[in-house]
């Protein structure tokens, strides 16, 4: 008998399994991303890339909680050009076994589009627009909280690249469905939900915000119930018909399935690699397989969006 199938297709891209390394986590180099694939990831997202290199924020840029991580890396990256060797190394090491999505950002719609235009030449399989990073002034988040800007941003990027374009959403909004709809109007091929939640930590002894950037983004288990809600709301809005990649606090197979049942076609995993290391990928795959055998489910896609409320 054949076992359950873990492969998924999202916006025309095939992944051997639905677990994708999230942007900004363990992905500074081609070798690191290849390592994640070796350890079981079905695909990877690069760190968010800009046209020019950025050093990011000075330390401290991370606060560890028992239930999550607060980070304000400040989008450090060697620039699209500086990163091209990394993509090359990734592609030559993984030999097509796991797609790579390039995350891009800029300080204007034009910059976003130019960054996207530059990455498409590196051979990546899709572009992910990071319109939701809370950690750099004038970048990211304020683009991603305004539906009109989102629509224009996606349009411009779509006009620049022939590959699928994902838009990554912030949970820091009044209505995630409005933002998702705007991305759809702009022509996005898929959505990623969610990025981190703006948050902060103050040390009471020194009476100082711990992060040099003062505020940062919360990820990890604390974010999960919020991310699941966002995915569910988009998938059940009746207004958005794009595939969704779920993200936020996934560290076990139950967590991954929760997102999938909420409506995600695939998921991204970031913070879990700090407590569980890259072993999380194989552990989650194993747990999903066992579950699917027990519940006699043949394919991941059979479960996508299967959670329906009694009242909804």
């Amino acid at each position, binding site marked *: 008998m054949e076992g359950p199938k873990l492969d998924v297709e999202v916006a025309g891209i095939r992944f051997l399994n639905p677990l994708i390394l999230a942007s900004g986590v*363990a992905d*500074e*180099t081609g070798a690191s991303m290849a390592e994640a694939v070796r350890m079981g990831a079905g695909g990877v997202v690069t760190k968010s890339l800009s046209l020019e290199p950025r050093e990011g924020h*000075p330390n401290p*840029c991370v606060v560890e909680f028992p239930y999550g991580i607060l980070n304000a*890396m400040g989008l450090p990256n060697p620039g699209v050009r500086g990163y091209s060797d990394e993509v090359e190394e990734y592609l030559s090491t993984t030999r097509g076994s796991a797609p790579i999505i390039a995350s891009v950002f800029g300080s204007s719609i034009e910059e976003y589009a130019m960054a996207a235009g530059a990455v498409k030449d590196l051979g990546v399989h899709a572009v992910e627009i990071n319109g939701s990073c809370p950690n750099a002034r004038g970048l990211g988040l304020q683009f991603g909280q305004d539906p009109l800007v989102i629509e224009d941003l996606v349009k411009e990027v779509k006009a620049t690249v022939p590959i699928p374009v994902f838009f990554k959403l912030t949970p820091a909004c009044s209505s995630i469905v409005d933002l998702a709809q705007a991305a759809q109007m702009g022509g996005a091929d898929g959505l990623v939900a969610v990025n981190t939640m703006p948050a902060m930590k103050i*040390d009471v002894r020194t009476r*100082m915000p711990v992060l040099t950037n003062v505020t940062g983004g919360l990820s990890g288990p604390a974010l999960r119930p919020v991310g699941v809600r966002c995915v569910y709301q988009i998938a059940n809005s009746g207004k958005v018909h794009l595939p969704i990649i779920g993200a936020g606090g996934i560290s076990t197979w139950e967590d991954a399935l929760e997102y999938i049942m909420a409506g995600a076609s695939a998921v991204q995993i970031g913070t879990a690699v*700090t407590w569980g290391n890259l072993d999380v990928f194989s552990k989650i795959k194993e747990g999903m397989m066992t579950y699917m055998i027990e519940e006699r489910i043949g394919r991941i896609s059979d479960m996508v969006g299967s959670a329906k409320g009694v009242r909804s």
Partner: protein
Amino acid sequence: MRAPGEMEMVKVLKVIKESSSISTVLFSPVHIGRWSGLVPGQFLMVWIPGTDEVPMSVSFLKREPFRMGMTVQNIGEATQALCSLKQGDWIGIRGPYGYGFNLPSNVDKDLIIGVSGGVGAASTILAMEWARSEDFRTVNLVGARDRSLLVFRDRWRSISDEVRFSTDDGSFGHKGLVGDLLNMELLAMSDHERQRTMVFTCGPEIMMVQVKRLLDQFGVEGQFSLERFMKCGIGLCDSCSASGKRVCMDGPVFSGDAISLLRDFGRSHRDRSGRPLPLKECVR
């Protein structure tokens, strides 16, 4: 699964000047349970409020009363601030992070050689104390640029069956590299003795490259404590990336076998934006 390493604010108990540019900062955390499980070679992320947060090895660990310490070489803003701390100042520590040194079984090995370069001694000394307390024979080879950077001299003597010092300028001990001392040591040993030996090393990467070459040449096993630029310290940001491994999470201590697979070892670091830099640009 590692346990979360939330930041704990600790008051500086005492700052001991080891030399003109090196000081040991002592403090006593409250969450003893967490810290007393620390394996020598693991590190802390140390927050100096208003200045920076930097990785530091633990050079000192005593129970009853519980005390921890780190030994810092003043080479820039953060380390300067650490060396200037006064009793009662608050700093934040999180950790312990990463893999430390792995003490072999007494059945396989009986001798541990510590090879320390400069402030790398801050990491090896705790490991060598541990080795000694677990009944290994210990030889310590300790090098530095000059006499003023050669710290813990009495402490080294007290925990070693044999100890040798070297300085680049000959101002104390052997004039030359600590690798030369290791070469002499290994030359004098039988094959059997070499097989029953484990080397713990920490110091400038260029020094550890020489150590690696010697160990390979003599067929001796070793463990290497690496440094890379660390932002998060917990395996997320990848700023400490070396050939696909995160030094903060997969290291900082690597076995010789693991080191052989790190093409970046002795070759390149990454700058704050993630660009590769040839090693020499990073060496102090």
